């Protein structure tokens, strides 16, 4: 997939900045869970609005998934979405020794908490590197155990196109898997481009 609205240099800078943010997020949840967290190489792509639900479904893979969304505001703004593979909440509960039978509300609460830690550390780290500050809305549940193709509906997206920054977290020998996706509408990408140019110039 080609990236039409950021340059190759900006994409490389974003990838490295996302990599560092992801590392900070990974270290944060590793501490919370007491487990070694496996990290991926961040992927960056540009997608049209109509393609966003399919892109998220592709990340989640076949089957059931849940998702939490959190808006971020400031010079950089957009939506962070954390997609959890099926049974991730139960796995988290087991790791945190909550007992094996989590009821619905407790299980949702857990996903919100973990998302909050991931998004805060990852995007906070990115913002710090880009010398800007961002604020976050409270996390809310976007989808609760739905087919991955139903995670997000195309008509719920206001942007024409979006920049998708994806990082993946997993835990060795566990089913827990999640993806963090940053969606930035095209009119917010100009600010991101400026911040990335600044970052590259200061290198």
């Amino acid at each position: 997939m080609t990236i039409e609205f950021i340059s190759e240099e900006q994409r490389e800078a974003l990838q490295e900045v996302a990599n560092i943010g992801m590392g900070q997020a990974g270290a944060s949840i590793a501490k919370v869970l007491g487990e070694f967290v496996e990290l991926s190489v961040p992927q960056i792509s540009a997608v049209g609005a109509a393609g966003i639900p399919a892109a998220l479904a592709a990340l989640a893979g076949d089957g059931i998934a849940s998702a939490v969304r959190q808006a971020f505001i400031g010079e950089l703004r957009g939506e962070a979405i954390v997609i959890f593979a099926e049974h991730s909440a139960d796995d988290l509960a087991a790791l945190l020794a909550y007992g094996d039978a989590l009821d619905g509300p407790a299980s949702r609460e857990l996903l919100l908490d973990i998302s909050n830690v991931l998004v805060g550390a990852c995007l906070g780290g990115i913002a710090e590197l880009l010398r800007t500050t961002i604020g976050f809305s409270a996390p809310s549940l976007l989808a609760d155990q739905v087919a991955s193709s139903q995670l997000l509906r195309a008509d719920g997206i206001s942007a024409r196109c979006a920049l998708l920054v994806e990082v993946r977290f997993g835990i060795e020998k566990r089913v827990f898997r999640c993806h963090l996706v940053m969606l930035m509408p095209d009119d917010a990408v100009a600010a991101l481009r400026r911040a990335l140019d600044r970052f590259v110039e200061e290198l």
Partner: protein
Amino acid sequence: MSVSVLVVDDSAMARKMLIRALPPDWDITVTQASNGAEALAHYRQGVVDVMFLDLTMPEMDGYQVLETLRREDLNCLVIVVSADIQEAAQARVRAMGAIAFIKKPVDAERIKAVLKEYGLLV
């Protein structure tokens, strides 16, 4: 004689950030590789005194490079440079023979301190 340095990272940006953070007065020849397999290929072609090694890379990651170096009894000083800053990651790479772990974003002073500690820089 100048020190042969190999910088291994899949991100050209990260390699640039690291190379700029190296002490300006350090007499070195720098070679770059964008994954573990390339790094080992470079290594086998000649001398590498110091390798700055990223962990998360496609093709062959940093852990696999460390494993290969150890298994094949290859000899160079490996400094891991990673965004994966989990304590367990740091402990793992040290157990696998890396002499130091430097967190991204890299800090020039920290690199200098490590180089001095190992007598690579006076």
